[in-house]
């Protein structure tokens, strides 16, 4: 499978990355080079093979159902949560207007 300019533009839109026309033109052959190379995986007979879900056998743990069990990720940390926000206002994350 190969991609054209239109497909790359659509992927970039899905990935929320703005790309210029010139960047698109440059990316198409690069991505096609990589995609053509990974095509070789199609040669592998995977009949009856399960896709890997856990690289090391492990079970997902459940923690005790306790409110604020880990104080580090519990509530009451608004200022720390906002400390690195580029536009924190009045104790909230600031974003551009989204409703007309």
């Amino acid at each position, binding site marked *: 499978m190969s991609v054209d300019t239109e497909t790359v533009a659509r992927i970039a839109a899905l990935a*929320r990355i703005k790309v210029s026309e010139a960047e698109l033109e440059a990316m198409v052959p*690069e991505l096609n080079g990589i995609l053509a*190379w990974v095509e070789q995986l199609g040669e592998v007979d995977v009949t009856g093979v399960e896709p890997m879900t856990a690289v090391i056998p492990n079970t997902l743990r459940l923690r005790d159902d306790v409110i604020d069990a880990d104080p580090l990720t519990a509530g009451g940390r608004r200022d720390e949560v906002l400390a690195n926000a580029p536009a924190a206002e009045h104790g909230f994350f600031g974003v551009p207007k989204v409703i007309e």
Partner: protein
Amino acid sequence: MIVTEITDLGVKAIRDGVAAGEFSAVEVAEAFNANVAAAAVLNAFIVATPEAALDAAKSTDAKRAKGEDLGTMGGVPIGMKDLFATRGVQTSAASHILEGFLPEYESTVSQNLWNAGAVMLGKLNLDQFAMGSSNETSYFGNVVNPWRRNDGGNAALAPGGSSGGSSAAVAARLCPAATGTDTGGSIRQPAAFTGITGIKPTYGRCSRWGIVAFASSLDQAGPMARDVTDCAIMLEAMAGFDPKDSTSLDMPVPHWEAGLSPDMKGKRVGVPREYRMDGMDADVAKSWDQGIEWLKQAGAEIVDISLPHTKYALPAYYIVAPAEASSNLARYDGVRYGLRDLPDGAGLQDMYAATRAAGFGAEVKRRILIGTYVLSAGFYDAYYTQAQKVRTLISLDFRNAFESCDVILAPTAPTAAFALGEMTSDPLSMYLNDVFAVPASLAGLPAMSVPAGLNREGLPLGLQIIGNMFDEQGVLNAGLALEQAAGFSAKPERWW
């Protein structure tokens, strides 16, 4: 009497020297701070923290004066790859989008190291978001390998990647050890390129909590140092169960340092025939043969093994890793932390797209786009599911191999360090440099690189030991046997 400079000492020698009062932790910190300050041209550090190193060293000395236990890394100054969140110290992942990010928390691995008595010299440069094999994708500029070819040309060489700041700093004696992370070879390949030692433990040994995520099913932290013993000491300090990481291994951390033994009697060393590729670099092939001979002399039995899906490891990796990266890096949205680019009159969606365009470098964008494409509707099964099935087969290859051997010996990388700029025109040629490193990553296995000797250009080559899951001890012991046989003592001549 030969006076050894403090900065030539490793982790164990510094720890033991500080504990015995041969020198103070402050003297150690000052010596390394001076080397860091004098090596700006290597660009190994993004942020140096000399005052913090001194303060921590002072408290180590105060503890010693009071007779307190200094810990297994007491007074040892280290470099921290700038992928680990460090409270109040910029954590950028070498990206523009996280430039200026000051974590409000400390990563589990770095906290474990501080708890063991280690001291931080600063944050080390890397490939942006750990995506690269040459440290050329950093927003903060290339790291220069302290090694040079013996041709007198003085070409600036790559330190490997992604842990290129770590490898350059340890090789240049800016720190006795540094943290690295390995997603597809990012500890082992840079270690090989700079003549140092590095180990990636079994997936889950070191907590991923507080490490900037790249590909979560592959990312694993590990130490980079100048010998096997130092790696054992530091890995022991870094590892441990962490309830904050859902894939953390709930197992006791073995005493790897105490268990070290170079005796290979009764051990079977597998040599994978698929790794001997057509057109292999003659010096790399020679050093591999030499490694086989060394382990044989150390008492090991050499076994021919087959890892039939080796060829497919890299293409599988370049589907799985970008897919996970595209998901992980969705968090950089210009809202919660990091860069925001808000063009005049832009709405929320435009802000996301402008922020991510300005904040990510070319390689990061390339991988996000590949990942987005292979996960998109209609292509998911053909690419991602197929790659995860191939990953299962690669894992089974290793499982079968470990029925007839205890550890596997292979080269770490197909070449010695290449020149900066030599590989950047074609992303694929760069990816191929991780051909020997990626299979163990896909299978989550412990693997280490040990310096084996110099090639015809006077550059270090590494040998790789891959072990069965949870068998870091077997890997370290085989590494120690190689280290003792190789007697590698070369170091880069100081030109910086």
